[in-house]
């Protein structure tokens, strides 16, 4: 599904505001069609990274390119290629939904603008409200309209800065589903979010930032890297201690038995599970259920944050 050709490249991309180093030597390569998550605490530099890539801010040092165009040199070209949903939707309250989009259609020089407006307003369920001033819209409606605005000119790269924050669960879900539908149409999406479940669900890869890059991988791989993979065996009530039996295998990294539940850390469950199951059965265990202990991306994130604070505190 993902074309390996990369559309976004950054090398040691940095940006400071006075004393504050908002983005610190960020090096990324993002593939065409990829949904790429930017995670990190408040002030981690997510928005600044997006603004740098959208050619709204100039880098203090380092470089970035979008679709082969260099930030700081080919800014006009970059702006044609990208769509941006900023942190604040920034719509004109005095204008109707349709007028807002028509204005942006003119800015992007969109041909067949009324068709595009209709298409996206319908997709996002705002078509019936198109003649109403945006000032009367709810937050969710505004957010949807701002997303429509970012897509009008069919950009190659779409930046979404916290698209679902401040939305109610239902509206957030709608927006999430919409993003999920956009996925796999060759469009590259950069998604800043504090919602880790959202990142888990939508993103092919995530970068965890805190000024500098803390980690970069697919959510599954990150989990594995931080916590390893763990298998859970649920047994019928038993008094036997199975820990010593399992620890005999050298691919077992860790075993923990709590009453009739055994959690085993292994490198490769696909090949090792059958071996473990046989050993347990031979030792008299009655296995009712086997599953993988899934850590949430949130746990990975919190672990990374703690580790990075540890490093900072450690050096002080």
């Amino acid at each position, binding site marked *: 599904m993902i074309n390996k050709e990369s559309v976004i490249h950054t090398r040691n991309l940095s940006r400071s*505001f006075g004393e504050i180093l908002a983005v610190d030597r960020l090096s990324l390569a993002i593939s065409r069609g990829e949904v790429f998550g930017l995670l990190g605490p408040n002030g981690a530099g997510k928005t600044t990274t997006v*603004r740098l890539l*959208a*050619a*709204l*801010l*100039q880098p203090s040092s380092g470089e970035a390119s979008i679709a082969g165009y260099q930030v700081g040199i080919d800014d*006009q070209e970059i*702006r*044609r290629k*990208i769509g*941006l949903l*900023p942190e*604040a939707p*920034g*719509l*004109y*309250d*005095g*204008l109707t939904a349709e*007028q807002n989009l*028509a*204005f*942006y259609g*003119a*800015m*992007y*020089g969109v041909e067949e603008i009324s068709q595009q407006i209709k298409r996206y307003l319908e997709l996002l369920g705002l078509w019936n409200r198109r003649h109403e001033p945006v000032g009367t819209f709810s937050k969710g409606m505004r957010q949807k309209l*701002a997303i429509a*605005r*970012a897509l009008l000119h069919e950009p190659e790269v779409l930046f979404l800065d916290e698209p679902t924050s401040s939305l109610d669960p239902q509206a957030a879900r709608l927006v999430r589903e919409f993003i999920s539908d956009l996925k796999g149409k060759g469009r590259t999406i950069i998604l800043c979010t504090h919602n880790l479940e959202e990142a888990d669900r939508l993103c092919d890869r995530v970068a965890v930032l805190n000024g500098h890059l803390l980690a970069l991988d697919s959510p599954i791989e990150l989990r594995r890297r931080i916590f390893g993979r763990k298998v859970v065996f649920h047994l019928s009530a038993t008094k036997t201690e199975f820990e010593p039996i399992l620890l005999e295998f050298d691919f077992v990294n860790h075993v923990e038995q709590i009453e009739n539940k055994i959690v085993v850390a292994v490198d490769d469950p696909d090949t090792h599970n059958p071996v473990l199951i046989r050993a347990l059965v031979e030792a008299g265990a009655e296995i009712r259920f086997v599953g993988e202990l899934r850590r949430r991306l949130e746990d990975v994130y919190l672990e990374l944050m703690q580790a990075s604070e540890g490093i900072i505190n450690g050096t002080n």
Partner: protein
Amino acid sequence: MERIKAIIIKEWREVFKNRFVFFTVSFLPLMITALPLVILFFTGRSEDFAGVTTADLPPQFSSLCSGLDGAECMLYFIVTQFILLFMMVPVIIPMTIASYSIVGEKTTRTLEPLLATPVSTLEILVGKGLAGVIPAVVATWVGYLLYAAGAHIIVSNPHVVNKLFDPLWMTAIFVVGPLLSLMGVSIAVMISSRVNDPRVAEQISGIFVLPVVGIFLGQTTGLILVNQEFILWMAGVLVVLDSILFYFAVQIFQRETILSRWK
């Protein structure tokens, strides 16, 4: 051009919804047209100056009063006295509109998505500028016509009122007026790029109206003689000043600066 047109229309739709802007744009020209007419009504009846001869007037006036007798020249002086006051209209209106449109976009955070589009800084500024200059110039011209019509009724001396359409005053209204609005817009753009409250932007810009008021007072007190030469000089100075101001306005209004300083 499409972009500039879209910006102008959008600006009008947005900014005139603001009561303060609407008030300034509609009432200021009305007041500046009505006030002189009221004063004229009480002081400028032809018969009041029946006895005045050319000899009673300051000598520099005679050069302006070709073809008029003493009484008419006196009237002419009173009637044209207020034209410079009119010159406040083309300065203040675009200042108000530009201040609200730029600072307004900063505070409602609509500027970021706009700056992310391929629209150029020049297109944004020309669009926003014209959105202020066009209503200002139209208001000035309409106001002037109303004033001329009112003066014609009150003074009822075609010799004097026809003088309002001399090349001198036509240059003032049709050339100096638009140049003044361009000045107003450029100043407002520069200040709006740096402040975050439209009222502050408007008030600081307002200081620059003072030279116009100064010229008006100078004329009223007889320190400045507003003749063809003076108006042409004024136009010349404004052309130079406008070019410099607009150049700096474009320089100051950079995407980078606006976004990195708006907090």
